[in-house]
C-alpha cells in the first residue's frame, strides 16, 4: 500500500516538475524544476526494484548532466534581455496539447493492451549492481562499447565546437 502512495506522490511531483520546466520563463528556473522531476523519477525507479538505476539517475542525471546544464546557464550569464520573449507561448502550448493528445491516447491504448503486473520488490538480486553488470557485459557488450566510442566522439566534438572562436559563415 505504501508503495502505491509513494508512487502517486512521486508521480505528482515529477509531473509538477515537468510542468514547471516547460512553463518557467528563465532556463535556470526550468532547470531546477527539472531536477525535481529527475529526483522523483529516481524514487520511482527504486519502487520498481531498479536499485542501480536509482543510483545512476541521481548520480549521472540529477548530478552530472544537470549540473553541467546549470553550469552552462550560469556560465553564459543570461540576462533577462537575452531570453526570447515568447509572445505566442500559450497559443503554442494549447495547440501543442491538441496535437499531442492523439499521440498520448494511442500510447495509452497500447499500454492498456499490455498485461498488468504488480510492483512488489523482487528478490535474488534483481536490479542490483552485480546482476545488471553481468547482463551488461555478457549480452550487451558490443552496444556498450559503441556507446563508449560515442561518448568519446561527443567529447572531442564538444571540445572542437566550443573551442571555436567564431562561427564560420
Amino acid at each position: 500500500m505504501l508503495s502505491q502512495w509513494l508512487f502517486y506522490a512521486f508521480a505528482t511531483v515529477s509531473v509538477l516538475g515537468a510542468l514547471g520546466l516547460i512553463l518557467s520563463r528563465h532556463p535556470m528556473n526550468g532547470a531546477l524544476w527539472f531536477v525535481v522531476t529527475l529526483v522523483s523519477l529516481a524514487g520511482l525507479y527504486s519502487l520498481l526494484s531498479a536499485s542501480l538505476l536509482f543510483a545512476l539517475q541521481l548520480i549521472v542525471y540529477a548530478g552530472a548532466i544537470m549540473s553541467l546544464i546549470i553550469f552552462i546557464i550560469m556560465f553564459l550569464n543570461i540576462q533577462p534581455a537575452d531570453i526570447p520573449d515568447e509572445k505566442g507561448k500559450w497559443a503554442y502550448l494549447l495547440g501543442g496539447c491538441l496535437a499531442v493528445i492523439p499521440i498520448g491516447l494511442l500510447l495509452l491504448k497500447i499500454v492498456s493492451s499490455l498485461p498488468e503486473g504488480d510492483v512488489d520488490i523482487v528478490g535474488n538480486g534483481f536490479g542490483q549492481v552485480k546482476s545488471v553488470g553481468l547482463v551488461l557485459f555478457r549480452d550487451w557488450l558490443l552496444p556498450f562499447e559503441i556507446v563508449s566510442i560515442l561518448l568519446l566522439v561527443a567529447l572531442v566534438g564538444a571540445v572542437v565546437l566550443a573551442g571555436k572562436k567564431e562561427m564560420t559563415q
Partner: protein
Amino acid sequence: MAQNVSYLGMIPLLPLIGAAVVGILHLATCKKKRLPDQLYAVLACSTPILTFVLAVKVFFDLNGLPVDGRALTHEVFTWFEVGEMNISMGFLADPLSSLMLLFVTFTASLIHIYSIGYMAGDESFAKFFAYLNLFLGSMLILVLGNGPVVMFVGWEGVGLCSYLLISYYSEDRSNVLAGNKAFIVNRIGDFGFVLGMAFLFWAIGDSGFDYISLKTNAHMLAPATVTLVCLLLFVGATGKSAQIPLYVWLPDAMAGPTPVSALIHAATMVTAGVYMVARFSFLYVHVPTVGLIVAWTGILTALVSAIYGMFQNDIKKVLAYSTVSQLGYMFAGVGLAAYSAGIFHVFTHAFFKALLFLGAGSVIYALHHEQNIWKMGGLKTKLPLTYKTMLIGSLALAGCPPFSGFFSKDEILYSALASGHTGIWVVGVLVAGMTAYYTFRMIFVVFHGSPRDAHAYEHAHEPPAVMTVPLVILAIGALFAGFLNLPSLFGGSQQVTHWLAPSLAEHAHEASHSIEIIAIAASVAAFAIGIFIAYRKFGKGAEEPVYSGFSSFAYHTFRINELYDVLFVRPYKAIGSAIGNLIDAHVTDGPVQLIVWFYRQFGSTFKLLQVGYVRVYAIYMIIGLSVMSYLLTQSFK
C-alpha cells in the same frame, strides 16, 4: 541493238580528272610557291580538247551504225541496287547526245583557250580552270547519262559549278548573292526534277531506269502519270534553263567572269532543260497539253525577256536577257513537239551566243572591266576583229539570213505556224523584231558613234590572239552552222533533223511551202524593222537615255526581283527567324516549359512551409505523428 563501247565513260571522266589534278595542285601550292599559270592552262585546256576528239570519234562511230541502231552505251558499274531499284552508272551516246556532245566540247575547248587570255594574271587562275573542268565533266555526265538519275548527277553538278563560278569574285557580296540565287532557284527546279523522276520510277522504273528501257515501257504509263511527270520535269527545266517563273537567276549570274557567262550561262548549261525535254520527248509527245504549257511558257519568257533586253545598260545583261529570250524560243520549239528544231536552235545558239559573250568579254577586257554600254562607243576602229566577229554573232542572233540563227529560229516559228498555233507564232515574230532591235542597239552603241569615255577609248586595244582566235572560229560557226539543217525550201536536206530523228519522238508538221514562205517573210520583215529602228535611234551616236515610265519599269525587269523578294524571300526569312528564335523556344518547347513551370510553382508553394525554425519542423513532425496516431487509434476499434 545498242553497241557497248568502253571509251564513253572516259569522256566525262577526263575533265573531272583534270579538275581534280588542277584543284589539288592549286590547293597544295597556293599558299606557298605558286606553280606557273601556263602549267595549269595546259593541263586544263588539254581535257576539253581531248574530249572533243573523243566526241568526234563518237560521232563517226555512230555514223557508221545503221540508222535504227545508232546508240553506244557504256555501263561503267552498278551505282546502287536496292530492292527493285537498280541504277547503274552508265552512259549513252545516241544522235541527240552526240550532237550535244560535239558542240559542248567544241565551245568548251574554245572558251577554255579564250579564258587563258581573259583570266591571265588572276590571283586564283588555277581555281578558275579547276571549276571550268569540273563544269565540263558535269555537263558531259548530264549529256551522256544513260538515265534520269545519272543525268541528275550532271544536272546538279553543273548547278554547283555555276554557283562556284558566279561567286568567283567572292569578295563582293552581290556576286555571292547572285551565286546563291542561282543555286537556290536551280534547286527549286531540281525539286521538280526529283519528284518527276520518282513518279516515273514508281510507275515503270522497276524494269530498268535508263532511257532505252523507259522508252520501251512508256506505253504502260497512265496518261495522268505522264502529264504529272512531264509537268514536274518541266519545272526542273524552268529552273535550269531560266524560264518563267524561275528565270530571275540568269541575269544576276552575269556576276561571274565573262567566259563563264559564255560557257555556262549561254552555250551549254542553260540549254540542259531543252535537252532534257527533248530526251523525254517519248513522254512529252503523248501529252500535247503539257507541250502547249511548255511552248507558251517559253514564248512568254522570250517576250518578257526581250522587253527587258531592250532597256538594259550592261552589255552582259543585254546578252543575258537575249539568252533567256532565245531559250524561250527553244522551249516553244520543243513544246510544240518540234524537238529537232529546238535542239537545232540550241546548237546554233551555242555558237553565236558564246561568240557574243566572248566578244563582249573582249570589249570588257579592252576597257578594263567596264560593262556599261553608255561608257563605250566608237570601238570598231580600236577593236576591228572583235567588232567583225560580234557583228556576225549579232546578225545570227537577230536572225538575219543566211546566218545560223535565222535557220534555227525560223524553223521554230515555222513549226508554230504549221501546227496552227498562230498566237505563239505572232509573239515569236514580235520577239524576233525586238531581238534585232536590242542586239543592234548594243552593236551601234558600243562600236559605232563617237567614244563616250575618251580615256578608256584611248587605252583600248585588241586582246591577244589566244582570245581572238576562238572568236574567229566561233564566228565561222555562227555563220555556217545554219546550213547543216538547210530546209528543203532552200534546196537543203535537213541533215540535223534526220540525224536526230532516231532519238526523238517527233511529229513532223507537214505544211505547204507557202506557209514556210510566209513564216520566213514575216521573220525577215521583223528583223529588218527591228534593225531599222535601232539604226534610227542609235546608229549615229546617242546619249544615255533616261528611263521613265514603262521603260524604267522594264529596266527594272518589271520589279520581279522585288516582287519575289517580298513574296518569298522575306517571308521565308521572317518565318525562319520566328521559328528559330521565338516559336521553337516558346511554342514547340512550350509543353516542356509548362512542366518546368509547374515544377517551379509546386516548389515555390511548398517552399513557404520551410520557415527555417527548427521548432516548426518539429511541429510538422508532431502533427504528422498525431494524425497517424489518430488514424491508428481509429483502426484499433
